[in-house]
């Protein structure tokens, strides 16, 4: 029974060394090169640091999405979930601040991780136990999370307590040996994700469930359990992104994380993960997130594109990147 899954894994393994798999990284290199040629301020240390740090949120959430998508599902609720978790965390921190002081940040972060995991679990159970198409199920929870954050904030914003702003600020603005902290956190999440996906039984089962759920089921893989766990991982990633996000602006609003789900899915697919499941590229996902952020940065830095057409140019670049991918293969 297990031989089927190991066979799939073995058949996949050598492919990782094909140069076609370097596609997302070549695309990233190309976009960066264009940036260097087009604008002198692109390559400055501050700009690069800004862009890489900014892409951390999408990258972290997209690591979770890589699991969900490669196991054959889809999660549209991540943007709203992120706003909801952010709101819960800020409210918890503000509530605990009088008794715990700055330690309220840790307590709040812990609560955030638990809430994120529970949100993911809810998504997973609706999809697997409820046997509802992931697209529809998470479209539903997307509306629920978005409405909850709007309700919690009365349509305004939920700001973090002033006393917590300064101790919390370094989580987004600080650095370790010159590397911005959100980037360090992203690296840890990506390494953990890569280990789980490429080196453990769970990762192989994820691929099996995504490439052919019937075959996987006959091979003794509990597809429902694998997929539910993928949603929980997604929820945890959303919570980690929320932990890095709060110190940036210090508030949650009904527009927090709006449309991030589409950016996340785009990053995952540009990175070489198949949207229909069965093949995952964690590092490609990171490259995808960086490509999106660099393109947006270049649109502002260059004066070539009218402000009305920025979104159109971004769309064209994404489609071109995907086409290049197809032809290289």
């Amino acid at each position, binding site marked *: 029974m297990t031989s089927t899954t190991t066979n799939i894994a073995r058949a996949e393994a050598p492919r990782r060394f094909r140069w076609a798999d370097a596609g997302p990284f070549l695309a990233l290199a190309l976009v960066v090169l264009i940036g260097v040629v087009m604008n002198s301020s692109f390559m400055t240390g501050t700009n690069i640091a800004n862009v890489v740090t900014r892409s951390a949120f999408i990258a972290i959430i997209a690591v979770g999405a890589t699991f969900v998508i490669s196991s054959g599902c889809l999660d549209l609720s991540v943007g709203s979930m992120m706003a909801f978790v952010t709101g819960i965390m800020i409210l918890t921190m503000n509530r605990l601040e009088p008794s715990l002081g700055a330690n309220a940040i840790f307590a709040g972060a812990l609560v955030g991780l638990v809430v994120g995991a529970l949100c993911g679990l809810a998504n997973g159970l609706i999809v697997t136990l409820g046997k509802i198409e992931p697209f529809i199920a998470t479209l539903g929870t997307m509306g629920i999370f978005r409405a909850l954050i709007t309700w919690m904030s*009365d349509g305004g*914003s939920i700001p973090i307590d002033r006393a917590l702003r300064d101790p919390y600020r370094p989580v987004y603005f600080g650095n370790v040996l010159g590397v911005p902290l959100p980037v360090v956190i992203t690296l840890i999440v990506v390494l953990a994700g890569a280990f789980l996906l490429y080196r453990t039984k769970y990762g192989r089962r994820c691929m099996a469930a995504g490439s052919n759920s019937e075959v996987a089921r006959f091979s003794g893989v509990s597809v429902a359990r694998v997929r539910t766990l993928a949603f929980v991982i997604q929820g945890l990633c959303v919570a980690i992104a929320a932990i890095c996000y709060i110190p940036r602006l210090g508030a949650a609003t*009904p*527009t927090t994380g709006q449309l991030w789900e589409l950016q996340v899915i785009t990053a995952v697919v540009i990175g070489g993960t198949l949207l229909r499941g069965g093949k995952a590229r964690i590092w490609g996902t990171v490259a995808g997130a960086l490509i999106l952020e660099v393109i947006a*940065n270049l649109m502002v830095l260059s004066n070539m594109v009218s*402000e009305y057409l920025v979104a159109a140019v971004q769309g064209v670049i994404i489609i071109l990147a995907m086409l290049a991918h197809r032809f290289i293969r």
Partner: protein
Amino acid sequence: MTIITRRALGALTAASLVALTATGALAQDKKIIAVSIPAATHGWTGGVVYHAEQAEKEIEAAFPNIDVIVKTSPSAEAQVSALEDLSAAQKLDALVILPFTSEELTGPVQTVKEGGTFIAVVDRGLTDPAIQDLYVAGDNIAVGANTAKWLAEKLGNEGKIVVLRGIPTVIDDERIQGFTDVIKGTNIEILDIQYANWNQDEAFTLMQDYLAKYPQIDAVWANDDDMLLGVLEAVKQSGRTEIKYALGGNGMKDVIEMVMAGDPVTPISTPYPPSMIKSAIYMTAAQFSGQAPMRGSFKLDAPLITPENAEQFYFPDSPF
């Protein structure tokens, strides 16, 4: 037994009939004002919902013969359906509406009007102004122009500035037009104008990019206070000190607090108050209760909010 039950039933029906007609008569004595507004999806509309609900409570307490019904809708289509539901359920004496879009809502509001309803339009005008009995709006051109005049004076008509604009709509266009028309008459150079969709996050990102792109920026104008908060965070992180002024608009309470505190970078704001919905509801109530004539157009000014008058524009309990 059966006779008794039948009689009892008969008596019951008679009683309920009397009760029904009584409530019917009561309802006819009451004037119904329906309020149709967008749902609270961001700060400003959150403020609209808050002030509409406050007005409902205050007016119903002050005038027992007026019943105010507030309905929020998340989209233009939903607002059209809400109008149909509202006018189908009861006879509306007045409708106070903040339309999502001008074009889509004009027809449906016209239909309500044909039933003999007093129409008060707020903020976004309908394409046919003949439909409205009362029009209450802020002055978006003045929001841009007054900010520009203040800025031009403070900068001595010299300098380099960047602008962040909102979501492509008439409101955004008018603010930008009011601002750029004034700046054209000066030596101030607008380095860049880009969309940040009235979103704090996008404003933060865009400001970071502006800072990377331009080595010298004398002032920033974000045409909404929500975006201004993102801008200020990006400026703080960059450690750049040459930026003398970062201004917003709309009168968000967090920014009014900064103005009250005499912040050197953000010493002013301009109001485009969501409480204008309240002005419209009060005026409509006056039309019915005090028989004070309220037909016509009412344009709220956008005077500068300064440390001296900030108190008048500050609503600490409002979400905006």
